[in-house]
């Protein structure tokens, strides 16, 4: 079984950022690129933001993902500018929205991918502990973080099974497609979830003492650089609001 792309690698990981920095970067992405907040000056900076996932992916030695991202993003970005002038009618609308939507969502998706694929469950937990969150939130969130790749793996297996049975979208199965997908997915996930719970509980998860963590996370030089960069749009935003 190949390793799921969503699973963090632990060896040979390149530049390591604190999970909190990564979360901040992802949030920024969501606010400024996806949400287009912050006014004109911040929006002028978006290409810079969009370059960030590429830099991060490269720094984490995720060569293939980084290159795919750079190519896809450039194509959609350039495409948006070019098609805008040379096409008309439906084609115009179609190409524009394809490129526009891709250029807008891709950076955030990549940033999310970067967060998940470079952070181990225990680093993530350590980060939340340092943010002083309640155990009642930390445990479900770390289970969720641990369980995402499992859900995707299960979905992939079910997909493979459907292919072998020749069940496709459309035809007489169209109405059933949801049931065929969701029912086995739920059944398998819940069963694996049960085993995961049992294994975690017999090692004392959910006790009354506060958890400790041996993960060595903390802000380093690279974190401060990225955090400083992340603050820039907020400053510009405030300036924009007060009207300077």
């Amino acid at each position, binding site marked *: 079984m190949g390793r799921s792309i969503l699973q963090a690698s632990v060896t040979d990981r390149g530049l390591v950022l604190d999970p909190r920095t990564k979360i901040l970067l992802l949030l920024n992405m969501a606010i400024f690129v996806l949400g287009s907040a912050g006014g004109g000056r911040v929006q002028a900076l978006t290409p810079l933001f969009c370059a960030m996932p590429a830099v991060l992916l490269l720094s984490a030695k995720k060569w293939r993902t980084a290159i795919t991202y750079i190519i896809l993003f450039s194509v959609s970005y350039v495409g948006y500018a070019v098609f805008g002038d040379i096409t008309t009618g439906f084609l115009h609308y179609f190409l524009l929205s394809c490129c526009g939507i891709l250029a807008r969502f891709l950076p955030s998706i990549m940033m999310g991918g970067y967060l998940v694929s470079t952070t181990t469950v225990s680093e993530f937990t350590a980060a939340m502990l340092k943010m002083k969150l309640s155990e*009642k939130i930390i*445990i479900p969130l770390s*289970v969720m973080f641990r369980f995402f790749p499992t859900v995707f793996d299960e979905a992939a297996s079910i997909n493979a099974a459907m292919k072998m049975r020749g069940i496709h979208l459309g035809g007489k199965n169209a109405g059933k497609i949801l049931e065929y997908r969701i029912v086995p997915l*739920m059944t398998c996930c819940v069963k694996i979830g049960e085993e995961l719970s049992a294994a975690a509980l017999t090692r004392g998860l959910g006790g009354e003492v506060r958890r400790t963590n041996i993960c060595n996370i903390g802000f380093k030089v690279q974190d401060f650089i990225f955090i400083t960069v992340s603050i820039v749009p907020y400053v510009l935003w405030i300036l924009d609001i007060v009207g300077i």
Partner: protein
Amino acid sequence: MNNDNKIKGKDLINIGIYAAIYCVIMTCIAMLGYIPIMMPLLAVFCPLIGGIPMMLFYTKTKKFGMITIMSVIIGIYLWVTGMGIYPAIFGVVFGFLADLVAKSGGYKSFAKTVLSYGVMCLMIFGNYLPLFIDREGYFASREKFGQEYVDTLGGIMQNWMIPVLIIASFVFGVLGALLGKALLKKHFIKAGIV
């Protein structure tokens, strides 16, 4: 048998597992929102299909607070994936209300469970809120999707859509819960996972 009402490790793990399943399914559906006409319809599909994993989750819920935590987590997930802060706030409020409703039925009553999920689904409106609070800003930010997109979506998303969306979230939440319950009976109970 354990009858005390404190949330334990087992419950927290369950929340995490069902939240993961729910979020994956919701993310797949939300992809449909790229098509302008589908945008308001998310208030139909999300509650409807989300009812399936949620009804399974409700069968594991017997303590006050679990539904609240669940919706807080979903809210955080939506926040981090770019839906803004409102779904998170709505998540806390409506999750808590949904929890109260379910509690009033002792976490067993069929009707209260269905109603509780309907209430929880109201958090979906949080996703639309920016569109109505700052209409200009919202569409300006989506210019890149093409003028057609803006026109189509703007045409649909008039202010009268506010009550429609709220009611739709609730009604389809209730229907989703019924669908979930039906699938429980049809598949999941027989599969022995309830």
